[in-house]
């Protein structure tokens, strides 16, 4: 109970600290504006289905990019800044465990990322709603025009057209996509936190976290290369590839937006499987970070 209070206090303060960083704030505002801008860019397409796919793909892409950048920049500044300004010393001279301090900082960042994801999800919903309303109004208008010219109206056809648009805009698969995009940010932040416990500079943390993030997206390629012995035969490359495959999380598997673009279904089991993987990986990474930070002399 006491630990929860400590973590909550530290998390709340971390949110305030992060929001005071101009670079992060600009990034968040820019991301929100760009997500809203998906509506504008979709005007260049003439296919309803493609329009909706574009809006979703664009908005989720922006959300992931901004979210991951916020996670990397936020986590890179978090611990090194505390160590540099020595505020960590004042906090740790209180009856505060080092793991409580670290988790407080981490959950503060996670809260900010959750707010960002929710804000962008809300904007995406609004954009999709306006698109849906506009398309439905267009259909109604065209059928009304046809009726006024004396043409026979096929109500079944009209209903099917409207249902088709609603199916595109009210896509339940988006919940899975956004949820996994959020957990990808959380996992990236946890990896960054682990690095920052041994790093001495913000730049090192940011670069290493970015490299791991990129490696995490290339894991499928690495697996392919590993299974093909011809491609990975060097004495150095082989163990290195093996190490990356074991240590680096498969971040590419979190990208479910491709399934939406391809029009494939997203089974719930698949989402839950990746979610479990993300939670397990994050927990292990956080435990390692807490262990390393506890043994660090300040």
């Amino acid at each position: 109970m006491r630990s929860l209070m400590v973590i909550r206090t530290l998390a709340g303060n971390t949110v305030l600290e992060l929001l005071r960083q101009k670079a992060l704030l600009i990034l968040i505002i820019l991301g929100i504006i760009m997500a809203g801008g998906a509506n504008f860019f979709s005007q260049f397409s003439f296919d309803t289905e493609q329009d909706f796919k574009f809006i979703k793909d664009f908005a989720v892409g922006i959300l992931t990019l901004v979210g991951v950048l916020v996670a990397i920049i936020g986590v890179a500044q978090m611990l090194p800044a505390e160590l540099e300004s020595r505020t960590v010393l004042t906090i740790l001279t209180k009856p505060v465990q080092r793991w409580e301090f670290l988790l407080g900082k981490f959950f503060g960042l996670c809260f900010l990322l959750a707010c960002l994801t929710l804000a962008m999800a809300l904007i995406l919903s609004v954009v999709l709603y306006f698109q849906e309303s506009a398309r439905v109004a267009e259909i109604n208008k065209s059928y009304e025009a046809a009726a006024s010219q004396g043409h026979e109206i096929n109500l079944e056809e009209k209903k099917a057209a409207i249902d088709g648009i609603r199916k595109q805009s009210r896509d339940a698969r988006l919940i899975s996509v956004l949820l996994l995009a959020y957990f990808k940010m959380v996992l990236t932040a946890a990896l960054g936190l682990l690095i920052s416990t041994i790093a001495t500079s913000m730049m090192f943390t940011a670069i290493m976290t970015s490299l791991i993030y990129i490696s995490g997206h290339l894991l499928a390629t690495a697996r392919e290369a590993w299974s093909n012995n011809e491609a990975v035969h060097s004495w150095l490359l082989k163990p290195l590839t093996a190490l990356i495959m074991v240590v680096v999380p498969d971040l590419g598997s979190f990208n479910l937006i491709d399934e939406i673009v391809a029009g494939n279904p997203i089974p719930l089991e698949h989402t839950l499987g990746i979610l479990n993987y993300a939670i397990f990986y994050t927990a292990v990474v956080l435990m390692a970070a807490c262990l390393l930070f506890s043994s660090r002399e300040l």
Partner: protein
Amino acid sequence: MSDAKAEDYPIEIQSLRKTFPLRWRKGSVVAIDCLDLRVRRGEVFGLLGPNGSGKSTTLKVLLGLLRPTSGEARLFGESVASVTSRRRLGYLPESPYFYRFLTGEETLRFFGPLCGLHGAALRKRVDELLELVGLEHGRHRPLSGYSKGMLQRIGLAQALLHDPELLLLDEPTAGVDPIGSREMKDLILELKARGKTIVLSSHLLDQVEQVCDRVAILHLGKKILEGRISDLLTQQGKVCIIISDFREKSPLQVKTQLQSLGYKIEEIEPPKMTLEELFLKRVAESTSNAS
């Protein structure tokens, strides 16, 4: 250690040694070597020493920020490695390290839950402390606008938040003007009167002399002297006689009289006040004249 002994000695350091490994080279630097120290309950203890003598390292070990290489350090009988050892401890860092965007009140409200305080009890304590350290006027001002003296005062307030029995003050008047320094000294004496045990690490020997009961001097990581201020500063076999209404021709007569009694007179001179006393007196006079 028995509980009674632990309560009598809030700080106990035995054979403490702390070394720091050198990067890229073999060997290490010895920061503290074989330090034994016991601080009694209710006393003001001065930790003195030049830069690099091991004062800060000793404090950091006591605060659990550094691990001893060997030996042990205990707070109220508990190892400093345990977080619970810090429940009865308050610490004022040399340069208060706080979030500059928070106001004075917000700073105390932030540290409250970390010390186990919340709700109405925290609000009441915040009001009490802001009054105690004289910062009611700075309550809603961000710390970025605080002067050095105000920062020291908010630092002391956060150290006192959970009403700890033991206070570690690292250079509490560093960079503070003489008036602020005097106020801090008065606060330390007030806290002592309230029964707090205080460890004061400082370069300002005058201040240490005025407030401390006992001192230890560290040099190159070793304790070279420890004892009561009054014992250490008293020059055995010598006496100082202060005579009021002293006449001009008196020195010779006094000297002759005392010499006739077999005493050797080293010096006869009017008593002097310290520069600090003079400064404070004149500033107080000027303030009263202006008002």
